[in-house]
């Protein structure tokens, strides 16, 4: 027993000594800026999370890993799109890994939970990843949570009119049952209902659902199109089953329904995706030089990535770029509880590949939305053609803030 105790004690001493040397060496160098990066590398959005990471890394690479003379140190963490997991991962980054700035998370419910957590850490600045729930910045906003991407509602602004222009007078909504799709559907319906469109049926399906047969059976004969707001594996599953059921109605897509990971879908219904209109903060075929440069940079850095960056890559890029631009603006000064840094972020006009982004009073982005249509190029790849570009879309979709209600299962409604 005694000899074993000695061994254990010795081992502890050795480990402690090694740790002391390692940490001592780290302190001796110029302090790097530690940035926590959270995305979903597991669960339904694993592919999206991976591409989000690529976008964020791209912003770091464009600065060669240095900002305002300080080295950028990225500490990554993963969640599985569950709010409790996202908060645990964020808490680890902030309290254990001691990051200065936190970038993430990816999905809507996670964003709300991380925003709530940010209130308990007033000295750390939180910048969104790609989460797009309205409530994150609209309901009890946190003074240290910034979002440089427009939300799920803003992404669909203008789509209602585009759908009516295509002749879709009655549509059925099929969407996942949580905050982000609520806001997407609201963004679509706000304009669509105002211009006289009708939505007789809304089907809310569980996130990560495998079986859509009951939903497909409920599709009324007299609707002109389906508004499908599903993401990742869910959208592919739905497409497969709708195809097997012999469905032929045209689609209006949510912002993550027709993202790059869906356009790479290999099933037979792939061709029927052609003609699908959607609203998104991104358009593959946008021809501004800033966008083209961004795509070229993405392709060069990530040969194993998608043919064109996905929404997640772009949005994570935007938020990480804002993070670093802000640091550059204050010359890396994070003193005084990061007050200067936050002021710089609030006033910043972010030069992005998709146009300028500025923040409103709730630290929520006001930015550009694209209305796109899926077309096939000469090599057989599907991509999103730009139908229309709408600038300066604000969070309340043009409605006065006092009258604006956060989207839900029943809000808005026009049966």
């Amino acid at each position, binding site marked *: *027993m005694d000899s*074993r105790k000695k061994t254990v004690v010795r081992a502890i001493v050795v480990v402690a000594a090694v740790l002391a040397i390692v940490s001592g060496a780290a302190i001796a160098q110029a302090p790097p800026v530690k940035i926590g990066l959270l995305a979903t590398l597991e669960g339904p959005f694993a592919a999206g999370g991976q591409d989000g990471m690529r976008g964020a890394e791209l912003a770091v690479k464009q600065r060669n890993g240095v900002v305002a003379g300080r080295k950028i140190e990225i500490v990554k963490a993963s969640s599985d799109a569950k709010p*409790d997991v996202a908060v*645990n991962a964020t*808490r680890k980054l902030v309290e*254990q890994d001691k990051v200065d700035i936190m970038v993430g998370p990816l999905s809507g*419910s996670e964003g*709300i939970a991380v925003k709530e957590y940010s209130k308990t850490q007033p000295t750390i600045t939180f910048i969104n990843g790609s989460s797009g729930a309205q409530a994150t910045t609209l309901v009890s906003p946190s003074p240290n949570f910034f979002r440089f991407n427009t939300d799920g509602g803003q992404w669909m602004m203008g789509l209602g009119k585009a759908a009516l222009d295509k002749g879709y007078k009655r549509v059925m909504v099929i969407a996942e*049952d949580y905050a982000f799709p609520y806001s997407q559907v609201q963004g679509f319906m706000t304009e669509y209902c105002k211009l006289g469109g009708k939505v007789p049926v809304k089907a809310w399906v569980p996130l990560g659902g495998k079986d859509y047969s009951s939903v497909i059976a409920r599709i009324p004969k007299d609707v002109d199109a389906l508004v499908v707001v599903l993401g990742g594996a869910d959208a592919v599953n739905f497409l497969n089953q709708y195809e097997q059921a012999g469905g032929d109605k045209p689609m209006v897509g949510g912002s993550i329904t027709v993202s790059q990971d869906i356009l790479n879908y290999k099933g037979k219904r792939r061709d029927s995706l052609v003609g699908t209109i959607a609203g998104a903060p991104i358009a593959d075929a946008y021809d501004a030089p800033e966008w083209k440069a961004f795509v070229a940079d993405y392709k060069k850095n990530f040969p194993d990535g998608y043919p064109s960056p996905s929404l997640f890559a772009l949005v994570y890029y935007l938020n990480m770029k804002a993070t670093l631009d802000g640091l550059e603006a204050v010359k890396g000064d994070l003193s005084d509880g990061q007050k200067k840094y936050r002021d710089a972020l609030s006033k910043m006009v972010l030069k992005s590949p998709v146009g300028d982004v500025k923040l409103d009073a709730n630290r929520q982005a006001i930015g550009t939305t694209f209305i796109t249509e899926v077309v096939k190029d000469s090599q057989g790849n599907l991509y999103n053609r730009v139908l229309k570009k709408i600038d300066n879309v604000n969070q309340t979709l043009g409605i006065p803030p006092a009258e604006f209600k956060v989207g839900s*299962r029943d809000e808005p409604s026009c049966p």
Partner: protein
Amino acid sequence: MSAADWRRAMNLQPPRPAAAGGPRAAPASTPRRRFTNPVRARHVIVLAILLAYPWYATPFFTFQIGAQSLALGLIALSLSFLAGSGGMISLAQMTVAGLAGYMVAIFGTAATDGVTLGWPWWLAVLLAIIGAIVAATFIGWLSVRTEGIYTIMITLAIGVAFHYLTLQNYAVFNGFQGEQKVFPPTLAGIYWRDPKPFYYLTLVCALAGYLFVVYLLRTPFGIALQGIRDNARRMRTLGFNVTAHRVAAYAVAGAIAAVGGVLFTWYNGLVTPGSVGTGWLINILVIAVLGGMRHPVGAFLGAVVFVLLQNFAIDVIDRERFNLVIGVVFLVIVLFSRDGLLGWWAALSARMSTQRGGSPWTAARRRLYAR
């Protein structure tokens, strides 16, 4: 495979020739010794370390590692009690815990579109625990007629059914979003979700649960339960009501899981269908198996290892492959030990005592009295 074979296969404790003379064989004239005997120097040391822990650990280690492990350990304890002492492996323990969490939100306060009655916290907690015990009793009543793998199947089915109920029911459970902002109360000027107070809260509950199980295993009920685990037919012949004992065990385990569930919900500040999904049902089994089911302390050991892995595996390896580390560690522990970490401990101490000149027989005895 017959039911008896299953029971034997599921009986995770190694066969012990000395078992027949177990704790009961202690001389009847010294009942006082039986109570004082187990308190040893190492118990005092462990308790002292646990009490002092938040004073030398960072808030992160206190809250996310310490308190989370204790709350999860409590839920796993309910399973290791059922499985280790009753021979019933129930996957629905997280369901019971999650139900308790939901009830705290529903009867108490939460930010939700669904029902929240806003009753005082103590009433909500009390109702949650009672409700969870009723549910656990019902689950037990449904599943006691099955053995081994069939118990696993039926409790898994119940767990998955509850998961989908919470996912699709909006009137009560608020669907995918679940119940948000479910926090412990502020009492006596202390906000009980701050790292230190919350740690001590979970520690007190965990210790109470632990001591309760240790005590219960020595009562006639506990002895009878272990008898039923080892040979239900013989116990029935001796006049014990086997079904009643098993259902009662489920109820007791339900109470423990409910307390753990309330704490875990307060820890997360929310309860969603994800909290009662298959992932967590299996995680609780993993925690119990990792730690070992031969002694109540195993559940907490397993929880600590599990939480540490969940948090730090991502630092060890390429960020996109960290689940591999978690899987490999689990495999190694389960492959090389009959009974998780406790199995390693037992093997180690048995080897130590043979080296010191004792026979394997004294090692076995030592192991037995170490309970």
